[in-house]
């Protein structure tokens, strides 16, 4: 056993593909670490995950990982059309990086899982896949969309089931961290939210920078509770709020005088301070808005 030299320890990041968001995240999502994005549905977490699948393919000089990626999804259907759309804009916004015959879709591997056991089974043999990927680029990014869907149905709200559930959380997290360490992977996991119901002491407890999480005017908390929060290294929260727009013109097209403001916030991260960043979801992808 030898200590690692901190000066040689790489802290690679995978770019988001947007300068403003990169600045907010201090370069993107870190390798050898688990980053979680929490939001209600329709906020843009799948959008940003898809974007990472593409930006990971950028060369390291462009902030990417020069890698292929693995997308594990538990929510259906897989948004293939949207990915295709993003691919086209990805290629046109990075014109001189790739050769004309390069197809980003060749370097994205998609797999569906339907239960936590299946995910564990997959993770147990994933190193064989990562060592010999069916692509010339090495695999450096794993996206799981979403973790909550795997745990929604099977478990009762009894102490015994909760204990079994949290043991599974730690198992999944430790397997992911092991692979992340071994292959220097960036791991991105999305998570859903549940409504906060008054007097719920455990869920109401403050975790991270934000006292309460609000989205669409409701108070919510990340699904899977406190034990899962212990499993991830960084947690980001995406919120969406509808505003009635007055006379000012804004970035997004006002639809009937109403516009949606989306915000990305750092709940906790070992390397990021408490901060937030507004973003928009456009045809070309997810972009941060300079405040």
């Amino acid at each position, binding site marked *: 056993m030898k200590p690692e030299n901190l000066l040689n320890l790489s*802290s690679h990041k995978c770019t988001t593909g947007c300068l403003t968001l990169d600045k907010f995240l201090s370069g993107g999502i870190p390798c050898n670490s688990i980053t979680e994005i929490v939001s209600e549905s329709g906020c843009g977490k799948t959008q940003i995950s898809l974007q990472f699948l593409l930006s990971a393919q950028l060369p390291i000089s462009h902030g990417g990982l020069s890698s292929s990626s693995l997308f594990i999804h538990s929510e259906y259907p897989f948004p293939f059309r949207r990915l295709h759309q993003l691919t086209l804009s990805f290629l046109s916004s990075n014109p001189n990086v790739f050769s004309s015959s390069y197809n980003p879709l060749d370097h994205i591997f998609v797999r569906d899982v339907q239960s936590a056991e299946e995910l564990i089974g997959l993770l147990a043999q994933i190193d064989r896949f990562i060592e010999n990927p069916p692509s010339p680029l090495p695999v450096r990014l794993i996206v799981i969309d979403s973790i909550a869907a795997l745990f929604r149905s099977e478990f009762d709200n009894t102490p015994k089931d909760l204990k079994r559930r949290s043991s599974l959380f730690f198992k999944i997290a430790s397997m992911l961290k092991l692979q992340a360490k071994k292959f220097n992977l960036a791991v991105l996991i999305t998570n859903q939210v549940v409504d906060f119901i008054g007097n719920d002491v455990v869920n109401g*407890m403050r975790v991270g920078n934000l006292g309460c999480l609000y989205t669409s005017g409701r108070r919510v908390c990340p699904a899977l509770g406190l034990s899962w929060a212990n499993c991830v290294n960084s947690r980001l929260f995406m919120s969406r709020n509808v505003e009635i727009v007055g006379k000012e013109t804004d970035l997004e097209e006002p639809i009937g005088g109403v516009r949606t403001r989306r915000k990305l916030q750092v709940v906790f991260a070992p390397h990021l301070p408490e901060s937030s960043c507004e973003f928009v979801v456009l045809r070309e992808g997810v972009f941060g808005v300079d405040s």
Partner: protein
Amino acid sequence: MEVCNLPLSPSQRAKLVSAGYTTIFSLSSISPLDLARDLNVSHNEAAQILKIALQSTRFDQSINNNASIVTGGQTAWDMLREEQFITRITTSCEDLDNILGGGINCQEVTEIGGVPGIGKTQMGIQLAVNVQIPLECGGLGGKAIYIDTEGSFMVERVFQIAEACIEDLLESRVFQQQDYQACRERMQPKTFLTNIFYFRVCSYTEQIALINYLEKFITENRDVKIVIIDSITFHFRQDFDDLALRTRVLSGMALKLMKLAKSFSLAIVLLNQVTTKFTEGSFQLTLALGDSWSHACTNRVILYWNGSERFAYLDKSPSLRSASAPYSVTSNLWNDELCHPYLWAHFKRSIMLLGASSWLTHRGSFRSVAV
């Protein structure tokens, strides 16, 4: 004691034995003149032999005196005297140092627990940097071992904290001009980084193996003054169906850590997670790893939110009373408007002394600790 154990030449020993002097006791009441005649040696040589024999008996007696107490035993008075020389590692937060009696104690095991995002890892990194504050600046000038089980250790963050620490040291000291330059050159963030021995651990077996190996490692690197395990918990929250086995493994580990702290006079800091415990039909918050684990540490500090402020609460200590103190996690790089370029900024003085009010008895809320 036998004559043959005396530091004499072999010929002298042989002469003593053949003349019938086999034990030191037999030499105790004899004059040099008689001995010279019996051994057929010079008077001087005989006197020399008796002198050596006398010294050995004295030495022998002093050993016997000590052995009357159990070996390694110490009187309370000695311990009190020794305690005055125990060094402490500052947390960089004055209030927190105050409730800890000056900082994290060397020779002791301190556990720090709290919810995700409260700043456990930040605290760990800060201590790994602070242990390196040079002696002339009031620090320990030691090195750190950082055992990372969760993967939350970020080198870029260590670099920032080291930079902030250096800035603060240079600011707080009045230097002569050349002194300042010399210090500036000597204290580089890079040096701080190379003085942290970083181990990444990916399973509980690896964790146990590493802790067993620590003794050897520290023997080779005597200047290690702190061992931080971030976190002690992570690998023990899966795969353990047999909780009795887990308890045994954990307490074995705790014993080894305590022994390390004592024998190398270094601080051991264990970071722990928070979990919910199901009692009397409701969920309560508690530090992970169960009740028996709570005996494993000498000191226990709980970090919690009080409104939007972070507080630290000294929950267990053999010599200090329970108290809480506010702290904050800041950064010189991101928050320019913050007055203090420091991680754990010095907050307004507000140490709240608490009575017996326990953190656990208040259902699920750390908050109630602050009166």
